[in-house]
């Protein structure tokens, strides 16, 4: 009985003229999005490689340890072919040096704003906008439409249990829509391989999970359509209700949730935090120099009155001064990291709130999970900053060790004395520094297992919503007036 009903449902979907049209469009869009994704990924990769080469070249031309700098460059992920997420919004690179803070700048969109005007079309966009719409288009009249045509009355003149009927409706429409969608998806994945994109084992697991969660979202909208259809009497009413639900879920709630969180929990801008740090740093240095001035004056007074200092005394004085300067530097650095940590903490709170609000819509849950799977989520920036912080420490240690080994070589010295006037000393010409042991930046990587942990919540949420919608459709239909 069940299989008969499923077969009937399948036939009615596959045979309808709108099926051919929508199937063709979905296929074209899925393939187009993957094709664009591959192109964008390739251009991002070549840009990444070029940037790396240029950095290597710049580094190799440097001649002093003091001014040596390096860069951390964000590596494109192959999964961004399917889910571009924030890959093009977040800065691509930062300078890593002793005296500059980490700041990822030059996002693709800020370099080429023309691409920011309409943003990108990728697989996750097609799933969350186009496929959900089609799921609803095929199911909104599944119950109310049959009632209007009078076929519902006919069916229940036979001994068909309602439970089986509604189950068959859901399964039938699901099969009729999911199987055809799988075809362009598989061709798209094949395209990825043919166009020479190298996917690692982890990427494959991510890709398969992404497809799984896409189908889950699709299933939710199929069942939602049936639920709405079983809750309304006329098909044009069920259509309107479904469409409003779709607009809310896809276009409004995700954005509104984030904006609401932005209003409830405002976060200060980076420019403000930087300005505050600069002001703090200026105050500290001023206090330091005022104090040093006094100390120097005391010292010279002491020396004039008593005797010339010995080398040892001079040395210990220099060390004292160095220690004082270091402590000021450390103090400022601490202040800065406290400020940044505070900013990040507030951003994290804002994020938690925003995403909880946005997750009222299953589409947001899907998109957030998809970004996690592609490593193009909001936390990507923090991950890169953390990795770069680690790298910066290694890099500074390396420079300090080298300077200790070879003696300090600063860029330029200016000496002023009452006898010789002003003299500018230059670093020895043509001297190269040995960079073979310089640490290299390693982009952060997450194992599939740790990613899956954060995706599981959304997976669970979507499953629960689908089951609830199904139960709702079931309950509504059992009481449905089939006349």
């Amino acid at each position, binding site marked *: 009985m069940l299989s008969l009903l499923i077969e009937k449902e399948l036939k009615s979907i596959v045979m309808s003229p709108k099926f051919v049209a929508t199937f063709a469009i979905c296929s074209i869009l899925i393939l187009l999005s993957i094709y664009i994704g591959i192109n964008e990924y390739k251009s991002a990769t070549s840009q990444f490689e070029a940037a790396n080469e240029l950095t290597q070249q710049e580094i190799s031309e440097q001649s002093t340890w003091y001014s040596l700098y390096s860069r951390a460059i964000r590596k494109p992920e192959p999964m961004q072919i399917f889910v571009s997420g924030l890959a093009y919004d977040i800065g691509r690179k930062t300078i890593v040096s002793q005296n500059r803070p980490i700041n990822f700048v030059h996002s693709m969109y*800020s370099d080429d704003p023309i691409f920011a005007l309409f943003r990108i079309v990728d697989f996750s966009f097609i799933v969350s906008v186009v496929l959900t*719409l089609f799921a609803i288009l095929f199911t909104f009249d599944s119950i109310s439409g049959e009632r209007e045509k009078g076929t519902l009355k006919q069916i229940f003149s036979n001994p068909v249990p309602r439970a089986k009927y509604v189950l068959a409706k859901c399964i039938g429409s699901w099969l009729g829509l999911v199987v055809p969608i799988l075809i362009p998806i598989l061709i798209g994945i094949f395209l990825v391989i043919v166009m020479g994109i190298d996917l690692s084992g982890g990427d494959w697991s991510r890709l398969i999970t992404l497809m799984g969660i896409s189908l889950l979202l699709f299933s939710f909208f199929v069942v939602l359509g049936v639920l709405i259809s079983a809750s309304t009497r006329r098909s044009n009413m069920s259509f309107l209700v479904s469409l409003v639900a779709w607009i809310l879920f896809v276009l409004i709630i995700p954005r509104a949730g984030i904006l609401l969180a932005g209003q409830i929990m405002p976060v200060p801008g980076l420019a403000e935090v930087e300005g505050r740090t600069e002001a703090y740093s200026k105050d500290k240095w001023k206090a330091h120099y005022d104090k040093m001035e006094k100390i120097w004056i005391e010292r010279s007074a002491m020396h004039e009155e008593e005797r010339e200092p010995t080398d040892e005394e001079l040395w210990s004085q220099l060390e004292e001064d160095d220690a004082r300067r270091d402590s000021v530097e450390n103090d400022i650095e601490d202040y800065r990291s406290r400020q940044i940590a505070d900013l990040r903490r507030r951003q994290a709170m804002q994020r938690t709130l925003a995403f909880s609000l946005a997750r009222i819509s299953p589409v947001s849950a899907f998109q957030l999970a998809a970004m996690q799977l592609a490593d193009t989520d909001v936390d990507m920036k923090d991950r890169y900053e953390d990795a770069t912080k680690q790298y910066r420490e290694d890099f500074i240690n390396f420079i300090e060790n080298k300077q200790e080994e070879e003696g300090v070589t600063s860029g330029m010295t200016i000496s002023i004395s009452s006898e010789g006037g002003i003299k500018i000393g230059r670093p020895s010409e043509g001297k190269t520094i040995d960079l073979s042991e310089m640490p290299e930046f390693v982009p952060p990587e997450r194992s599939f297992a740790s990613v899956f942990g954060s995706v599981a919540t959304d997976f669970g949420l979507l499953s629960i919503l689908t089951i609830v919608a199904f139960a709702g459709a079931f309950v509504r239909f059992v009481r449905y007036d089939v006349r």
Partner: protein
Amino acid sequence: MLLTIIEKEIREIIGSSKFVLIFGSCAVLILLSFYVGAKNYKLNRIRYEAAQAENLRQFEGLTDWYSIQQHRIFLPPDPLATLVSGVSNDIGRTVEIEGRGEINPLGSRFSEDPIFAVFRFLDLEFVFGTILSLFAILMGYDAIAGEKERGTLRLSFANSVSRPVYILGKLIGSFIALAVPLLLAMAVGALLLPIMSVSLTGESWIRLISIGSIGLLYFGVFLTLSVFISSATERTSSAFLILLVVWISSALIIPRASVLIAGRTVDVPSVDEIAAKKNLYSRQLYGEDSEKMGSFVPENSEDFDAMIDEFNRFMGDLADERDRKMRELSERLNEERYNAQKRQEKLALNIARISPTTSFTLAATQLAGTSVEMKNRFKDEGEKYQRQYGDFIKEKTGSNPGGRMVVVRMSDEEGETPEAIDPTELPSFDFQQENLSASIDKSLPDAGVLVVFNLLFFAAAFAAFVRYDVR
């Protein structure tokens, strides 16, 4: 006769439950986008002022103008930019002014607060471009085919109604019935701005009204298109399906896909390449200069102050010369990139203009000052400010900023302490929008495209209906 038909159409639309539901959600969205825009603007304003205050605060207590470091200017928030965000959240907003050299705006909103980039903003451009076009389709898809299915079309033509008058009445009636409520919602939304104490200049009001008119024009394109498709099909379900496909491609796919694909066919030198060339040249110049520096011998080594002055002059001249050479190279490289970008823009956008949504977005962002050109505009304004700042510092200190050595001499005599500078004397950065008439001129071609679309679909609807089988 025409009037009766228009009246009938208006009554029919306004009385339908479909209208109530759809218009209700559109009105809520329009109001929400104004509300969110105003709120965001105020938040941005607070941030902007805080950043400015922190910037000035760091100079407090300084006693000489050339000790100013890390002087920053910021892109000021604009209420129109929060309503039609365009690229305003994607471009760098903060510039460090060093007094010489090329400026480099960094720190885009989306890069700093990626959370807002996840789903982007709910702005007026989105509501019009995506939602209202869908609204137009929903209200127009059954205009003819639906009446036919219900049999009312046959009834109408049992009377002596001429077809041209009927279709004209349909189009005018549905446009009035839908546009007037939308205008009301927009007017209420716009009223929210002064109520929430967001003040717009007269010029901004004109811009906002123009954006609204372009929006209505765009709405008209989808409405006439819907009536056209409706009178070219027999059944409402196929009319709707066709329109939905057109909507998805026009509003969601064509603008994105064509800009990405066409844009990539034009080779634009990357920012990294250009930066590397500049770095290389700058180091080369510095290397040459450091030789000259090494052979610097002061003429006067008796008077310490005169010696420092001479030294600073020497260093300043070298820096000025380096600056000039760098500027030449930068200008050349930037121009190359700029020209390539223009070519890219032209190709990509012209292809994208197949879709009326592209034309609408381009015209609206042009009017709001948030078009693709915004980045270069901010950079130009920033450079203008940098020159102004350079002149100011020169006036105060006698030499160009940068390349100067500050000598701090200690003494134990309790001499007079030097007076602190007043940081508020610094010239303030005043971002000038493109002037109104230029913006309007630039948005006219796209407005023209929308008018042409309207006329085209109108004529098509007319032609299709004259031959329509009303039975």
